[in-house]
């Protein structure tokens, strides 16, 4: 799922400085599951903002809401009737959500409250790790299901880089597993090690036009 991380409060208060009535909008799916932008985090951020303003002696009135999915236009438009007395919107959704909110309510400034970081999974409670870089041209069939583009620090397509530490750890980050050691062990287990001998041409990262577009049902 999409993993995000709350921005430092200083950045948020600086952006909101000129505004009096703020709508803080959370999103109920991905960012909620990774404890960054769900209903709970909306409450905590709103309370923190009120306390910060209180400490500076100025006032702020905050409306708190959480949209089921902020990347759905219809769900965001539902907030229409509450936008009248709002000066600015603070969205805790991922990049897609913030931009949908900004697009629907283009007369009001919309600020992000979280940094969308990667597509990943929970490693243990409260910690999430990147698994996929959405490069648009998946190689997982050739690496036994371990993605070197993202999980190898240098993104090598014909690894390992020879600097692997003892215990199969990455040269750059000692407590991170070297992706290519994982690939080797996985293929060894399925005795498909010959795949490692195939040379993999450099990836053309510009092959995929930005911004990406997927049309259901078309080639």
């Amino acid at each position, binding site marked *: 799922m999409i993993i995000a991380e709350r921005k430092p409060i200083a950045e948020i208060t600086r952006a909101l400085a000129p505004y009096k009535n703020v709508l803080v909008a959370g999103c109920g799916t991905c960012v909620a599951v990774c404890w960054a932008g769900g209903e*709970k985090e909306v409450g905590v951020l709103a309370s923190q903002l009120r*306390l910060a303003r*209180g400490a500076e002696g100025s006032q702020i009135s905050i409306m708190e809401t959480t949209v089921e999915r902020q990347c759905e236009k219809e769900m965001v438009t539902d907030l229409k009737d509450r936008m009248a007395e709002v000066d600015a919107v603070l969205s805790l959704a991922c990049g897609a959500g913030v931009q949908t909110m900004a697009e629907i309510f283009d007369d009001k400034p919309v600020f992000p409250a979280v940094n969308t970081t990667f597509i990943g999974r929970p490693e243990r409670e409260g910690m999430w790790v990147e698994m996929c870089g959405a490069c648009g041209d998946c190689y997982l069939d050739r690496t036994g299901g371990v993605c070197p583009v993202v999980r190898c620090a240098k993104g090598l397509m014909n690894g390992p880089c020879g600097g692997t530490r003892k215990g199969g750890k990455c040269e750059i980050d000692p407590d991170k597993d070297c992706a290519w050691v994982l690939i080797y062990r996985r293929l060894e287990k399925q005795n498909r090690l010959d795949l490692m001998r195939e040379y993999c041409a450099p990836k053309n990262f510009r092959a995929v036009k930005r911004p990406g577009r997927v049309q259901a049902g078309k080639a």
Partner: protein
Amino acid sequence: MSMKGTIVAFCCQHSGYPAADLAGKLGLGSPEALRIIRVPCAGRVDVIHMLRAFEKGASAVAVLGCEEGACHHITGNTRAKERVEQCSMLLKEIGIDGRRVVMFRLSPNAPRKFVDVTNEIEMAAESQGRQDDNR
């Protein structure tokens, strides 16, 4: 009127709350500004409860749970400790002294510890209060 100097204490019904009762029975003086909210376990208290108490003007917030290793719900007091640290970080981020939110662990038959802990919180909050006022 904002409750200048009030201390909101979330007391676990297995440890903090009975300790407060014993302190009363022994006539040991705990701070008058203390407002005790009874919770089933320290693990029930969330960051939003602590922040809302500060928004309401509390000078300090405390979570009183069971001793480490004696929690009736095994992980309740460790969860509460993590959330208090998180709340303290959130306060530090906006310039309020992180030490105003504290977690203390005690057992139900330790009234003396309850009184020492709550008086310590009040003194810390007062000295901190003076620093904030003249800032």
